[in-house]
């Protein structure tokens, strides 16, 4: 017999988790399967809704959605659905800011640029770029991904309305140059003993002591986002108390602690909603013509059927391999849903790195009901919906819309799936 549920969600990123959460909160029995760990591990932890349209920074994402083309996921769903999706996120994830306004917040990045985003973790809040408090950025010698003096210079050059300095210190405990971000987080989480100048001190105090020498009246201090995992609030509060300054984390590239923490919050919410989920085994095929009867999961070589009434495809885009490209064409590998793309491979991209590439918008073609459509515009399967980066028609990198599209389409796919339960 098959492993059964009302709704089966394929994919464990933001879109998959949101659709599973939406469906489970409606009372459906939900199972989420993901081949690899959630892509949230690679995410900055910032939740962007719409940062840029036609290279112009967006102040109010909801207003700016009018300027998007008709087939953009936001236009397909409409503003109200996007708002409902964001409301689900706000309700499920504690410790995030930005809900109080429609307008984008501006957050400094580890490269020293300023990024428009809709939601940000509490740990990043004190770093907001529209705040004029003077700022000290602190980097660690052994953590090459964040060059604090360079980032400070960039922020100055970008016209940030506050004085910024950067300093690089040695992290207490003399970590090796390739210490993992989780090592810093663990030391601070556990407040482990470290040796400093012949004394044994807790890691949090030792770090604050090293920063004090450079504080020089700055009102807030930004660290790379490694300030603990499980106990990040306590770590930050301890540093703030010892420094007498506000402390914030600067979001980093992958692998990212704020992404890991967001993953934890979302899966906790999914557990509380009573959903089942499993990671480690891929969906490799399905049975059914216009209606999916069941999918096949490869469990270490054994093929196990999983059946559901409704399915959500949230396997990601080209990066996550939810959309595959070869020299012959672009495909969606599980259900072979149609992915529109130019026949000539040389029309997939432009010459400049930051040009408007066609490939950036590759993905399955859907209408407002999020059901993938074939080349003739007909629905491929009556019980399949797609969400997140598997969808075509938008360029998340240029628009800074990746999280928002995942949340909105995930919410809509999960909600519609439950409405259609037989």
């Amino acid at each position, binding site marked *: *017999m098959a*492993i059964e549920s009302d709704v089966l969600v394929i994919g464990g990123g933001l879109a998959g988790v949101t659709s599973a959460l939406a469906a489970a909160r409606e009372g459906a029995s939900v199972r989420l399967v993901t*081949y*690899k*760990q959630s*892509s949230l*591990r*690679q995410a900055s932890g910032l939740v962007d809704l719409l940062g840029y349209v036609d290279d112009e920074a967006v102040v109010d994402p909801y207003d700016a959605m009018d300027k998007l083309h008709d087939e953009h996921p936001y236009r397909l769903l409409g503003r109200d659905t996007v708002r409902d999706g964001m409301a689900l996120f706000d309700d499920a994830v504690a410790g995030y800011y930005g809900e109080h306004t429609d307008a984008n917040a501006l957050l400094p990045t580890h490269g020293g640029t300023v990024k428009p985003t809709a939601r940000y973790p509490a740990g990043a809040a004190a770093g907001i770029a529209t705040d004029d408090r003077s700022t000290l950025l602190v980097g660690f010698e052994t953590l090459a991904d964040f060059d604090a003096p360079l980032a400070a210079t960039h922020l100055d050059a970008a016209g940030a309305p506050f004085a910024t300095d950067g300093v690089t210190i040695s992290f207490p405990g003399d*970590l*090796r140059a*390739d*210490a*993992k*971000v*989780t*090592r810093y*987080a*663990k030391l601070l989480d*556990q407040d482990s003993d470290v040796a400093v100048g012949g004394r044994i001190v807790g890691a949090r105090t030792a770090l604050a002591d090293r920063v004090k020498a450079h504080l020089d009246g700055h009102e807030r201090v930004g660290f790379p986002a490694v300030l603990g995992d*499980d106990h990040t609030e306590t770590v930050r509060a301890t540093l703030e108390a010892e420094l007498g300054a506000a402390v914030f984390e600067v979001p980093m590239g*992958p*692998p990212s602690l704020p992404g*890991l923490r967001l993953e934890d919050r979302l899966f906790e919410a999914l*557990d509380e909603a009573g959903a*089942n*989920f*499993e*990671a*480690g*085994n*891929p969906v*490799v095929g399905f049975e059914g013509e216009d209606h999916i009867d069941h999918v096949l999961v*490869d*469990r*270490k*070589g*054994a093929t*196990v059927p999983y059946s559901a009434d409704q399915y959500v495809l949230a396997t990601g885009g080209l990066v*996550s*391999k939810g959309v*595959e490209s*070869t*020299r*012959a*064409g672009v*495909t969606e*590998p*599980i259900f072979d849903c149609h992915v529109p793309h130019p026949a*000539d*491979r*040389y029309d997939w991209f432009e010459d400049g790195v930051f040009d408007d590439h066609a490939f950036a918008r590759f993905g399955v073609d859907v209408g407002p009901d999020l059901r993938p459509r074939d080349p003739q515009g007909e629905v491929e399967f009556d019980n399949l919906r797609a969400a997140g980066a598997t969808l075509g028609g938008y360029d998340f990198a240029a628009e800074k819309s990746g999280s928002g599209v995942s949340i909105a389409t995930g919410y809509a796919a999960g909600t519609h799936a439950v409405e259609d339960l037989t």
Partner: protein
Amino acid sequence: MSDSADTPTDDTFEPTEPNTGEDFEPVQVFPDEGTMDLRPGADSCTKCSTCDTNCPVAEVDDSFPGPKFQGPEQWRLKQTDEGEEFGIDDSIMDCSNCMRCDDACPSGVPLSQMHNEARGEYVDEEMSKLSVEYWRNRILANYRTSAWFASKVPRLANAAMNFGPARWVMEKTMGITSEREFPAFATETFREWWAARGGAATSREHAREARERMGESRDADKRVAYFHGCYSNYNTPEVAKSLVATYEHFGYEIVVPEQRCSGTPMFANGMLDDARRGAEVNVSSFADLVEQGYDAIASCTSCSMALRQEYPELFDIDGIEDVAEHTFEAVEYLRIHEDLEGELAGSSVDFPDLAYHAPCHARNQGLERQAVELFRDLDGVAIEDVGESCSGISGTYGWKAEKYEKSMAIGEEMFEHMDAVEPETGLTECPTCSMQMEHGSGYEIRHPLEVIDAAIAEE
């Protein structure tokens, strides 16, 4: 350059090797044909470092360079003329073989396979066969041999193995930590019990009776071969007995074929020759049964992991793929083939509330939520997950005196969570995780099969 018509099209999706579909000119980089080709794995690595953030050792020890180095980076370095002169870095012995990095890699790099190969090469070529470390590791890895001797005189063995002065000597001379208590040996092994009970013939009778009760055909094709492993044979036969009772309840007839250690502790210690000898016996006896229509089931998640994944990755033995494809974790198998949820949802059980820890090797089979999801609707028992950290013992790892502190530092998060939740009995599928849970909390630790058995018995 343009699209050429002679480019073979490739639209087959191979999820386990997602990046190898494109054509590339294979370069012969190995001196001989018999060596595994790990190049596609190394080439697939994009250095995203997700594996490193999953490594429980790197989290507590920054001198450990992490899975990305141990796997693809070290492999690449060794392919150059200069690199060939270097051996495998000795940090490979700090890897605990938890295999979390496998599941983490978004690009399908076979990290644990690369680690196992590297560790085997290190032990073969660089570790002195006269060293205490080598013999200590070999004795720990060949637990089955010690357990076999001990099972002949279990009471004496239990007293001797935890006799303080003897343990002090073991630590000083062998480097086996005296901090831990050796697990007790059962006075009757599972196999002794099984034989006295009448073996497969008795099981067939029980299965037939159950099928009749369930309204199924008396001769339904429900046959499983049980890989009990060493621990449930010598130390926790109650787990194996629960498996037997549960499977017979659902109408399965069980056989218990000849078997050796699955090889898990040998992989972790780079003793690939020892592991291969065991694998040859195991594959030979289980492949015959698979051919007759049996599926293999294991109650230890590291045993099922070894048979399903490490065997075909590391060895080339006739029938090894068939065995791998037909091996399942015992609860998983019932969940696939029977309405286990339905059966349990209508049951109640008299069992202490449980603090559950998912072993790393269960995670890698996609089973980390299985116990929680199965038991959360079961009346009479509450279950709480104690989080996603590794327990830290990793089989023989935490038994080594020089690794003990590291092992406990890794386990700290789990101990904290065990302390924070209400239940005061532990639950896990893995024998060595259960040792660590008991060591850190003092709780008694049970196996999910015991809960299912108790629920069924209540009916």
